[in-house]
């Protein structure tokens, strides 16, 4: 079969060229963004001979204009969201899959149903709820609601493959319940936790509408919101704006480069957009 396919057909060449071209279109804007980020352009008439490549924009982003703060906010919120989502969802998935809770399947169906609801529907009441409990302009407002039904569903799917024998053996040995969860279950479902962490990381880092509404104080902006505001200024410094976009992209990109296999597998298996 392999040998039969090695023949070079005109269709194959055209296809290869087209797919290569598409891949180029996928990265060209990002390369453009990167190049622009080293410039200090306020007009778009780029004369490359006048462009001096330097890191001044990156210096500004990290040390000036509250940008550094928003970057730090995003990092803190994203890390908290990943840990929190993994923990809460793994606990719930374990309870649903391995414990004889009465009525659990009905409750699980309600959980799943909440996944269908668009975020704009809950946006207004969520904002009012957060205002009532005093969580606006806090990290909690951003990361606590991230632990939704999707994570529970995803980990439960994986938990179905975990043999009850491990749990029973530990119970017979008199292993306390919390130890069974932390020392036996969590290590066994590690691949699912990695996938969920990746999903949560990218979703939280890139999320925009909720942070825009919930955190309106300068010092509590996330990086994505700060990037958006930078772009809506009239006197845009294109170089600075592209540097901010580059930083915003670089962090999930670094994760993608280091964990490409888990990234792709997680999506191919989970198949549900976070």
């Amino acid at each position: 079969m392999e040998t039969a396919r090695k023949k070079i057909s005109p269709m194959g060449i055209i296809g290869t060229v087209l797919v290569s071209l598409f891949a180029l279109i996928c990265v060209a804007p990002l390369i453009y963004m990167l190049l622009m980020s080293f410039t200090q352009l306020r007009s778009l008439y780029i004369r490359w001979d006048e462009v001096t490549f330097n890191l001044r924009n990156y210096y500004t982003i990290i040390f000036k204009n509250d940008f550094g703060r928003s970057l730090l906010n995003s990092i803190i919120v994203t890390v908290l969201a990943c840990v929190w989502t993994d923990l809460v969802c793994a606990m719930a998935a374990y309870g649903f899959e391995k414990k004889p809770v009465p009525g659990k399947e009905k409750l699980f169906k309600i959980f799943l149903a909440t996944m269908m609801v668009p975020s704009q529907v809950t946006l207004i009441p969520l904002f009012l709820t957060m205002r009532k409990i005093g969580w606006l302009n806090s990290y909690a407002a951003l990361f606590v609601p991230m632990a939704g039904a999707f994570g529970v569903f995803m980990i439960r799917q994986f938990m179905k493959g975990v043999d009850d024998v491990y749990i029973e053996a530990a119970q017979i040995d008199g292993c306390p319940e919390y130890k069974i969860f932390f020392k036996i279950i969590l290590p066994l479902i590690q691949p699912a936790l990695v996938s969920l962490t990746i999903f949560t990381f990218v979703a939280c880092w890139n999320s925009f509408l909720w942070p825009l509404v919930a955190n309106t104080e300068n010092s509590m902006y996330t990086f994505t919101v700060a990037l958006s505001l930078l772009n809506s200024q009239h006197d845009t410094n294109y170089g600075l704006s592209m540097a901010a976009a580059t930083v915003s992209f670089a962090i999930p990109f670094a994760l993608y480069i280091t964990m490409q296999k888990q990234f792709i597998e997680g999506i191919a298996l989970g198949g549900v957009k976070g």
Partner: protein
Amino acid sequence: MKKRGLTGRKQQAFYGILYILPSFVIILMFSIIPIILAIYFSFTKYDMYSPAEFIGLQNYEGVFKSSTFYSALWNTLKYVIVTVPVQTLLALLIAVFIADKMRGLYGALLKSTIFIPVIVSNIAAAAVWKVMLKTRGGIINNFLGLFGIGEVNWLGTKALAFLCICLVTIWKNVGYYMVIYYAGVMGIPKEQQEAALMDGASPAQRFWHVTVPNLRPITYMIVTLGIISSFQIFDIVYQLTGGGPGTSTITLAYMVYTYAFSNQKLGYASAIAVILLLFVLAIHWLQDKVFKER
């Protein structure tokens, strides 16, 4: 022994409840109650500062009389109709081609490259495209200028601005669906492809009679996911066009945001949100029905 087993079971159930409790509280507080509240607010007049006042169907009457609503509805539908088929078809063709003809390192590289836009935030993507699409000096117009095409006002012309929103969306989404399709293609039993080859089927015939039918469940999933995510488009519109020029790129989700948080008409915005919810539920229901019939 039996009695002990029972208490053991009860104890296990109790542990189970404790495990589920945190996620239950979160979903109840931040998902289930907000949905109920959204429906309630849609029947009230509410400006965030004075208490909500019940006004029956007035918000819905207002919405259905508003021409902005029909623009938003029409734009949202148009956006779904343009983006979903294009991104699904591109993802399918690229996945099948790479799986079929480019199993080597170069194919793997292309696959990884095409996925990259998926991890770019909508805001960063829109920011970059906005700079590239600038009328004066934008790189796209500069490029077109090489072929003697004059400066195009991409984001200032109604039809073109809408097209740009669609293009950025497609640019961002193809890689995601391509990865799902690719896994699907790899899962097609080899025997089927080989049998088709033995029967002397052309590549096109194999594509239509082996690949496409095998991928049907994935296609349903991808189309449903695509429709639902397209229905909720907000970020790209917010960053790229702000709904303009005029109302040419305003969408339902964008309208919910602006009416709630710029105009402080929370009841009215909730009515639009509920209409959006009904559309999304209808799509789920349809997809469920189609799935069961197959």
